């Protein structure tokens, strides 16, 4: 039954994300994930739910190759993450947008510069960068903050900048770790609308959250993690 639930719908596109029997143990013996298998189709939006410490963040770190699994296989768009060269990892990361729980913004750079970074590393044209960043600033309601250093913003604003940066290059896969943790209901609505728009345009989105309000009543698949295991 679990196996069936964790597979993408039969009629959906081929899988973009494949996680097969993945275990992650941190030294000396902290089991963060145990035998986790799941997959997400191209253009699918899925929720990864569960209480704090369930292993959601660890799973997202494994998906963007920030960590490597102790056991098991992870494939993104057909690429086995365990067997990628350094250069290939960087190329793959350019196609993955990540909104980190701790934001990972550069505090001395402006909001605009922070959001532009993923596009800069891909050498997009300055015009393209300007218009995309401005569009995202508008959509997330932080346009008037664009010249402010990211370090001077409130946590809610920083969270929106982190989300905008993850979405900036319209990635193939977007991973969002507790994206609404610091946001009020109205701003949560803006963020979810942005995710929906990206998803409609073909991005695969995995949202790790324990905020029931954003996944209750939605038609998207949910994976529930508890103590490192998938239920």
């Amino acid at each position, binding site marked *: 039954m679990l196996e069936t639930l964790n597979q993408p719908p039969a009629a959906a596109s081929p899988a973009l994300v494949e996680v097969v029997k993945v275990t992650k143990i941190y030294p000396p013996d902290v089991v963060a994930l145990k035998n986790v298998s799941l997959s997400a189709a191209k253009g699918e939006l899925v929720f990864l739910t569960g209480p704090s410490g369930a292993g959601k963040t660890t799973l997202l770190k494994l998906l*963007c190759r*920030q960590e490597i699994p102790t056991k098991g296989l992870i494939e993104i768009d057909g690429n086995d993450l365990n067997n990628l060269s*350094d*250069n290939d990892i*960087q*190329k*793959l*990361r*350019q*196609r*993955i947008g*990540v909104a980190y729980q701790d934001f*990972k*913004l*550069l505090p*001395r750079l402006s909001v605009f510069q922070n959001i532009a*970074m*993923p596009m*800069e*590393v*891909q*050498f997009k*044209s*300055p015009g393209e960068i300007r218009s995309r960043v401005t569009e995202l600033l508008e959509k997330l309601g932080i346009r008037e903050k664009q010249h402010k250093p990211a370090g001077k913003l409130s946590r809610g604003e920083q969270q929106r900048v982190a989300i905008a*940066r993850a979405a900036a290059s319209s990635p193939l896969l977007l991973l969002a770790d507790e994206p609404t943790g610091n946001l009020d209901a109205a701003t949560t609505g803006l963020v979810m609308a942005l995710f929906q728009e990206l998803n409609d345009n073909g991005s695969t989105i995995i949202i790790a959250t324990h905020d029931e309000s954003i996944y209750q009543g939605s038609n998207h698949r949910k994976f529930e993690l508890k103590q490192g295991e998938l239920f």
Partner: protein
Amino acid sequence: MRFALFIFTQTLRNIRHSWGVQLMTLLTVILSVLIFSFFYLIYSNMLQAGEKFGEELRLTVYLQASLSPAQQQEFTEKVAAFGKVDRISFITPEQAFQRLARQLGNDSDVLADLNPAFLPFSAEIYPHKDIRNLTRIKEFAEYLKNLPGAQKVQYGQAWVERFGHFVKLLRFIVIISGTLLILTTMFMVSNTLRLTLFARQDELKVLRYLGATNSYIKGPVLIEGFALGLFGAGLGLAALFFLFQWIRNHFSSAGFLQLFELRFLPMTNSAIILLGSIMLCTLGSLLSIRRLLKK
């Protein structure tokens, strides 16, 4: 083109964020280049002076008796057997006497009652530049002294030796200061850039998470190193030029500086110092970023 634009923008951003440390490194490079090229300038001027003195160097062989033209020819052949000479002049006692009188000028009347025959017959030998170094000159003098009929050989030994030792000392200082300054510059540039990179470690980590390639991260750092080398050496050489002009304007008419014409470093040597500095600083920056990317 776009790659170059991004790398350039990123470089300017980096320099703006760490301008204090960058300025200190630039000053270090300027000072290193200035010290090294200052010693090198003295050394090259000394070499030039040595060459000039070498052209005027002659060995005088005092002979026991006058030589007939046939004997002079034989003597010339024996001298040439050691090595090439530019010219040999035979000076008779009369010629030597006249020369002495000229040198004495107004005091030449002291020679009034003297017979020129008290002066020996001599040969003045102007060696070819191949045998103008100190060791060869000494060997040549020894050889001449042992020729039949030779009584004494003079060539201003003490002065030539002192000058030779001074040039040797300068060469030693240039080599030592050059080596030390090269090592210091590389160490300083590499460590300063490493410090600035260390302060930007979080930024580099984020850049890696966003998919920045090694060339995207390395590029600006290498350009920083290149710019440090270029401006450091350029300003160092410019400072040396102004120092040189000042010395020439204020001291060229004083004492021993009158003996030779002061010249600035030739363009080729200045270009070599500039390129060397650029290479060292770029290498220093490459070392620092490689160490950091390996972590």
